[in-house]
């Protein structure tokens, strides 16, 4: 039983009432093919459910997909719920139909990165890799 390592653990979540999860599933599969272990919450989750799942699963990054236009409400609520569950240090990456003018604001609130439709998958994977590596360095640091 040679133990094989994975690149990292990612939670892909879909907060809110939007049921369009093709994008979330494509990202989940691409991450899997890039060597990540991916946990998917399924559609229509509350920010609290996503945060508590992220904590239980001890993931390295949370990825959120919102296509309903409610990203300005839902992304910050997930950040808040994570913070309350003592997981404020976990990086959160968002994606969906998000107007250019909202991106800066969301990043200022603490989102690690925001991707809009049409972004090449490799760009997204690279960002997940970078965020994971940074987080795992802290996670496995001995003090």
């Amino acid at each position, binding site marked *: *039983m*040679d*133990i*094989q*390592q*994975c*690149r990292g*653990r990612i939670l892909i979540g879909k907060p809110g009432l939007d049921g369009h999860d093709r994008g979330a599933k494509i990202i*989940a*599969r691409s*991450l*899997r*093919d*890039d*060597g*990540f*272990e*991916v*946990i*998917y*919450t*399924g559609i229509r*989750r*509350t920010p*609290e*459910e996503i945060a*508590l*799942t992220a*904590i*239980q*699963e*001890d993931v390295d990054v949370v990825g959120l997909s919102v296509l309903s236009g409610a990203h300005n409400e839902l992304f910050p609520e997930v950040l808040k719920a994570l913070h309350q*569950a*003592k*997981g404020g240090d976990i990086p959160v990456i968002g994606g969906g139909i998000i107007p250019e003018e909202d991106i800066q604001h969301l990043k200022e609130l603490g989102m690690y990165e925001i991707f809009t439709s049409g972004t090449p998958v490799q760009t997204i994977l690279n960002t997940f890799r970078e965020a994971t590596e940074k987080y795992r360095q*802290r*996670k*496995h*640091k*001995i*003090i």
Partner: protein
Amino acid sequence: MNDIDEIVKGIYLKEPRAIGRAISIIEDGDQRAGALLKQINAKNIQESTILGITGPIGTGKSTIINQLIAHYRKQGNRVGIVAIDPSSPVSGGAFLGDRIRMMRHAMDKDVVVRSMATRGKQGGLCAAAAAAVRIMICSGCDPVIIETVGVGQAEIDVVRLADITILVLAPGVGDEIQMMKAGIIEIADIVVVNKAECPGADSLFMELENVLHQRNCTVCRVIAREAYGIEKLAVFIGVIDKERRKSGQFTNKRKQTRETEIIDYAIEMMRDELRRRLKEYPGNYTGDPRTIARKLIDDICIAELDTSKRNCPEVFL
């Protein structure tokens, strides 16, 4: 959340962050794993029951677990779930999807779910499964339910780790010839026919009863999505658990499991040393592998005996 003492304290205080991190430390083979495992000697480990749920792909293992969680929560128990899915042999990644069926318990702090990937291990479990179970028991979970990957016939590791193993089948997975084959079906404690409303379920149920009545194995019918038959399944589990604890079978099996786990670890720890020695060994790539293996082991034993000769009773020399 990096200090081992803090994590250990957190496990006993049922803190989700500590439990999650502890399992990661073991799973990733973090340097602190040894120190952590040393400190989590669960006193309550004998009181808690470990259930194994196994069965082919798509028979409804996760959905049954979802219903069992609801049942045990109603009784006031804190429940732990270790849900295992396969790692990709190509990328090493995994898609862990068991949890989707259990999301209705996501806000319940007394339902501890951990999704794990096999990370190259065969047999239906992952290497850190036993440790994850122990961590959950330490945090007060009883029962802890292990869900294996979707299995074929021979992935039987779960039978070793669990106190009670439940095999989940559904109509359409095979005819009576499949029921006659050797493997998991011979050692499961309870066999569940899920999707009992579907065509073929009754004949599957009868075939199973036919094959299994000789060895006193319970067969039951459930419709997991509607929670039909779940209470009855839980009663069967309870009866078996009670009987085995009374007869001593429970303790015996736990002892055996422990022994096997220790030997597995010992072999795993020897692997690096064996690799190192094999490189130095002349002619290691020709000749009969079994003979060379024997020689490797003999050499290690002789070296060991040389250093400890003075204290060693003659009979062992």
